[in-house]
């Protein structure tokens, strides 16, 4: 999809029609192969279910019912998808520049903590709206600095960003615990170390008419904005060149270091915002519950979406549906919670394997060569 649109032929208006076909065909490849992979993983999973004596039909019926089948289920799904869009973006943006960062969880926790902490002196002194804006900025800044640090370490010190972002996650959680159990602890709550609660007036409400908080809308808007940034701007173009071949990008005189730090910082900011929404829309305070694993699930979502910001929206919703139905499956089929993890793991592996299929089917190729970078 996106890469093809930057085919050099695209600039000439006379080629517009042919280019459209190229784009369409190559987009079809990006949809057909993941769908095929999903079907294969569903079949494999059905074998697994049959092997343990459960009905695959019942399973997928319950996934539908629990995830999408009723108005309640849809809201349940959307609510669970909300944080995943932002944490998946935290993986997708660095991936476009060729980095695999998995530190979204740490940025989420620290971002959430920062927004809760900065709100403490403002409560009852500053009106809710500016407070929330400052909280969101604090969350994004701190999250951005955290993953940006992994990017900077990568570029300037040659430290593997996958490892450093993962390790920074544990440090981030420890920092939050340090403050939440120490200096910023709300002493009126003796049994669960937390920061001071925001109170209802300072909470972000639900999207009117639904049970879903504004984090979903924010995630969707940010995903679209980032898609535009990565595909329609010189910044995005330079980032993708760097992702294709960093040495060539350097030779071209691109500011590779700045690009890497910016991309990782954007990633961290997304995760930090997810943390802000966890605090301002759900928890109302920062505590250990922030580390609920959304940052790690986001990795999976981003890979499934092939690091495409718009695709992330849909994959996150699909994922939210699977997770939402997980409970119903436990209850109705008497299966352990790990069953859904088996499905997720199978899907992940099959999708990774399906990566090797790209470019192998003539049907997706147009007369002119479309260079996928």
């Amino acid at each position, binding site marked *: 999809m996106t890469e093809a649109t930057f085919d050099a032929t695209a600039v000439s208006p006379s080629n517009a029609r042919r280019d459209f076909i190229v784009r369409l065909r190559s987009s079809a490849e990006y949809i057909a192969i993941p769908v095929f992979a999903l079907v294969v993983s569903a079949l494999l999973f059905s074998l697994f279910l049959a092997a343990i004596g459960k009905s695959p039909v019942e399973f997928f019926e319950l996934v539908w019912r629990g995830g999408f089948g009723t108005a*309640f289920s849809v809201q349940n799904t959307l*609510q669970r998808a909300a944080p995943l869009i932002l944490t998946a973006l935290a993986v997708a943006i660095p991936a476009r520049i060729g980095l695999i960062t998995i530190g979204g969880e740490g940025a989420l926790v620290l971002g959430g903590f920062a927004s809760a902490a900065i709100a403490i002196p403002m409560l009852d002194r500053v009106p809710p709206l500016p407070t929330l804006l400052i909280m969101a900025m604090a969350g994004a800044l701190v999250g951005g600095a955290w993953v940006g640090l992994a990017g900077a370490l990568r570029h300037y010190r040659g430290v593997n960003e996958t490892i450093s972002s993962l390790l920074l996650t544990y440090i981030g959680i420890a920092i939050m*615990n340090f403050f939440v159990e120490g200096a910023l602890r709300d002493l009126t709550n*003796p049994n669960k170390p937390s920061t001071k609660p925001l109170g209802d007036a300072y909470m972000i409400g639900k999207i009117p008419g639904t049970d879903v908080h504004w984090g979903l809308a924010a995630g969707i808007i940010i995903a679209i904005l980032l898609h535009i940034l990565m595909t329609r701007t010189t910044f995005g173009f330079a980032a993708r060149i760097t992702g294709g071949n960093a040495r060539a990008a350097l030779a071209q005189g691109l500011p590779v270091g700045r690009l890497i730090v910016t991309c990782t910082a954007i990633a961290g900011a997304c995760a930090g915002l997810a943390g802000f929404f966890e605090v301002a829309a759900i928890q109302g305070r920062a505590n250990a*519950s922030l580390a609920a694993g959304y940052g790690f699930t986001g990795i999976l979502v981003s890979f499934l979406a092939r690091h495409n910001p718009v695709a992330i929206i849909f994959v996150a919703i699909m994922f939210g549906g699977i997770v939402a139905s997980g409970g119903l499956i436990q209850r109705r089929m008497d299966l352990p919670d790990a069953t859904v993890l088996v499905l997720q793991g199978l899907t992940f592996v099959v999708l990774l394997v399906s990566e090797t299929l790209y470019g192998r089917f003539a049907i997706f190729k147009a007369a002119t060569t479309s260079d996928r970078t």
Partner: protein
Amino acid sequence: MSSLPVQRFHISRRRFLHAAGAAGAAGLLTSTSQIARAAGVTIGIVYVGPRDDFGWNQAHAVAIKALKGVAGVKAVEEENVPETDACAKSMESMVNLDGADIILGTSFGYFSPFMVDLAKKYPKVQFRHAAPLWDATKHPKNLGSYFGYLNQGHYVDGIAAGLSTKSNKLGFVAAKPIASVLSNINSFMLGARKTNPNAVVQVIFTGDWSMPVREAEAVNALVDAGCDVITCHVDGPKVVVETAEKRGVKTCGHNASQAPLAPKGFITGAEYKWETIYKGYAEKLAKGEALPNMVAGGYDTDMVQNTPFGAGATEEARKAATAAIADLKAKKPIYVGPLKDNKGKLVIDKSYDNYDPYLDQMDYLLEGVVGSIT
């Protein structure tokens, strides 16, 4: 995984408790809304970790399993549910898709805001949460709390441990210095000093509910320091008990029965008795009676128990512990002042009833405990 804040409760025996006193216990206020559904009772329960964690979650799951055998009672369970809006959705799903009459939330962080909001949204469904957080002035009437005073079980552990030590040094591996944990440590120490005035309890905080490596290190450090009886308050006591057994020292358990893990050194352990409470709820719902908002208790209301004595318990220890249990059933107080904290400040000025709210705010280690909460 499970960051279960309050005390980890346990359940242990699968046998059934008839104690109908359960519900009545300390439950003072009763809810006004009644549920009278003709066909049986559906109980929904949500756990923060796996049902077979050898600790807190398993303790609840064992009680639910026992309930499933009761005619007219249906139970739906969900495990590994984090303390975020996922728990609210899981509970709502039980209400909407399974028709649950009562929802039990077993992890501390489920309560506010999630269960509070749900109770307002579904006024005909009962919600009960396993920690003393319900407040009549602030919270809906179809919401409530239940919990047990596990420190009574730890007190009995201490009584037996005091008679089991040769070095007079007892070791306690604790997760976080929060009130419920501190009360267990202090009660353990008071029990030990009751039978052995020279006993000292050395505590190591691991910092989190589930830190298996650090728990093993803590046990080794305590044994190296001369402790010859080890107990704990962590999510899953398995590592602590097994490591202590390997080092050849005696152990007291926590949450669920760890007796099989320490065939040589196990003395006894503090356990909850959730069946008492859950069965009380089920019976009242089946009869269409109102549920109490607050159910809490200890030995006197059959809500805590001690694991049957293991090979590590001497005859003397068994006798003393059995007598201590009888005392607790007769409501004899554990905290009898004046008592100082381990920095010399007077913190317990008089004799406090075992359920005195003052004790719930505990933020100190008493004299006799070696360790620091900061």
